[in-house]
């Protein structure tokens, strides 16, 4: 009896909820009905394909096609190539550990208590470990060429390494753009606008085709580092604009007060202005980072084995030819998990900042 009463109450409240949220006007009601009808037609076939008729253990794509569903067997068979590419098979615990380190570093950076010098030390240590693990050549780990650094570790090294290393240049550019010295300002504005004016893919092709032309003969930089340099120089312009936005939001009184305290330009910036400016730039910085993370997928166009390229190789394998939806879904899921997590974090910081200011 008690249970029935609760249920009646539930029905009552959900009825009220539906009145307010689904049928609050004739137009809204119409939309609700249309959407429900569309979902009824669309969702069951998708579930059918992705779950009910999917094959997880089929030996090849032909067997998958017989059951008429998704061919997740391709992923179970190929996931190590998709994640690590051509990294030596028996050594793939190393890139796996690298992924764990990067995720741990990203998580640690989200913890406000760790902000400051400790975090910088943590990052330097972490990146050193990444270098040792990827290269090897010490502690009995065989040496692995940078050409074989493929898949998700490549994406993370480019994106995370790129944004971390672009920071010093970006700070200088942002300060330069707000400087009172005309030559410094002109150089900073010129750099930022030219870099942001061209698509990333043009810079990528330039980095691959043109950079060797501008270096002394017989001077060789491995392709990966050329790419990383292009990435750093590219992201720096975007990060600089974000930091400039933060600088713009600092009231002039802060500059004047720190000048009145007798601080020189660099100490003013380091002790008073930048800590505040960077604090409020965290949400747009995360946005830039998400953009950089997604941009790493473009390196597939200049012949790098990133996640997307690995997927392309996999779906062209004779055993699994045509499993492109499954391959793309796997790659999309990885990108989505990282980007979604970062955008949630940025929203969380935004609400925190909002509360702090009120």
């Amino acid at each position: 009896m008690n249970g029935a009463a609760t249920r009646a109450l539930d029905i009552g409240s959900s009825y009220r909820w539906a009145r307010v949220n689904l049928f609050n006007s004739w137009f809204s009601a119409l939309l609700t009905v249309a959407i429900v009808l569309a979902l009824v037609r669309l969702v069951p076939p998708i579930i059918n394909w992705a779950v009910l008729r999917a094959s997880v253990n089929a030996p090849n794509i032909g067997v998958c096609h017989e059951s008429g569903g998704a061919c997740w067997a391709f992923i179970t068979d190929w996931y190590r190539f998709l994640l690590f590419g051509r990294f030596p098979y028996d050594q793939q615990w190393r890139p796996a550990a690298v992924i764990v380190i990067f995720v741990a570093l990203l998580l640690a950076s989200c913890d406000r208590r760790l902000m400051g010098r400790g975090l910088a030390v943590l990052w330097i240590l972490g990146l050193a470990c990444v270098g040792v693990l990827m290269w090897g050549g010490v502690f009995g780990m065989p040496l692995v060429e940078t050409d074989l650094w493929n898949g998700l570790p490549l994406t993370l090294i480019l994106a995370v390494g790129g944004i971390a290393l672009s920071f010093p240049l970006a700070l200088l550019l942002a300060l330069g753009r707000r400087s009172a010295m005309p030559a410094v300002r002109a150089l900073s504005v010129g750099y930022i606008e030219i870099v942001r004016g061209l698509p990333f893919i043009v810079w990528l092709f330039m980095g691959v085709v043109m950079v060797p032309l501008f270096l002394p003969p017989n001077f060789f930089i491995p392709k990966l580092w050329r790419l990383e340099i292009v990435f750093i120089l590219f992201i720096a312009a975007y990060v600089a604009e974000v930091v400039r936005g933060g600088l713009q939001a600092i009231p002039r009184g802060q500059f004047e007060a720190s000048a009145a305290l007798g601080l020189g330009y660099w100490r003013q910036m380091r002790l008073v202005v930048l800590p505040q400016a960077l604090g409020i730039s965290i949400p747009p910085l995360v946005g830039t980072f998400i953009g950089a993370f997604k941009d790493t997928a473009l390196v597939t166009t200049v012949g790098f084995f990133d996640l997307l390229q690995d997927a392309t190789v996999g779906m062209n394998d004779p055993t699994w030819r045509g499993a492109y939806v499954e391959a793309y879904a796997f790659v999309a899921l990885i990108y989505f998990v990282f980007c979604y997590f970062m955008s949630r974090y940025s929203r969380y910081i935004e609400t925190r900042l909002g509360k702090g200011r009120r």
Partner: protein
Amino acid sequence: MAQTADPLYLRDASQRIAPWRNERVRSVAFQLAIVAVVVAIVAFFASNASENLRRQGIPVGFGFLTREAAFEIGNKLIPYSPSDSYGWALVVGLVNTLVVSAVGIVLATLLGFVIGLARLSTNWLVSRLALIYVEFFRNTPLILQLFVWWDVLRISAPPDREAWRPLPGVFISLRGVTFPVPIYQTVYAWAGIAALAGAVAAILFSRWSARRRERTGQGLPSFWIGLALVLMPPILVFLAGGAPLELDVPKLLRFGFSGGETITPEFAALLFGLIVYTAAYIGEIVRGGIQAVSRGQLEAARALGLTRGQMLRLVVIPQAVRVIMPPLTSEYLNLIKNSSLAVAIGFADFNSIGNTIINQTGQAIEGYAIIAAVYLLINIPTSLLMNLYNRYMALVER
């Protein structure tokens, strides 16, 4: 900024202090040093480049632009054949880029506004679906989405006979997307002129009505009258011309389609991918702009006795547009830049034709200089305008 402003109380003293402590001397010296470093770096790279080019025997200059291109272009909107020059091939690519960008911007804006308003809908299902749309398309790389659309069109799409028909008259097959196009009539040109005249009349009228309102305090429904002034003349001209509306509808024949317009899978995938991706961003910009109008403004507007329409038109939209415009403009620039991903799915846009030419001729420096110049010609003026706008809107203090 404060430290170089040479405050009054220092003016006299600055004559006497040592030159290396003088703010102005130091600033000039510092700038000279920085410029010298930059010039040295550029000179180093330039000398390397000229040395390398000399060794490889690559001639310098833009003479190659008049040579015969000798490659085919799959998607061309203006006449081109392989016997045309490299320069003309670049023009064909530029037209492709501009058309994709223009169509993409218009459609992405429409879809984006729908998404943005749907996010704010009071209907739970609508706002939830819009949220899922935004999160999904913003959190995966565009190039991945382009690959998916492209593979759907070139692998999973049916042959012509069994083409998908999402809308009447629209066919999606392995050949690409075929859709009806209106047949051009002379009346359309006259209707266009009438619309322009109407727009001028509407602007003049709204100025006059604003002045009249300020003078007499009597308002007119100027929005509706303005709308009528813009829309009525072309409609009247169209009707007077006998309302000729003829669509060239594609028909399925034994071998492919006749009539209508067909675009290749590459073109369709690029356009569709750009629209769907950019619309997710525009939707968030629109939502943010509308939400940025503070509640107090709405309450004040209501307290003044404005109607719902007046509130939207006089209070919400002007303030939302102020917030929306800068990010919207930069989203348009992003779309133009993103159209260069065409190279990944084999659509011949400006950048990919430029790359083909560089590969064939080896003229990397000249080729990239042209590519860079064209993208900058599109981007820098817009960016400058944005910065002016930004300065105008930025926090104004003292």
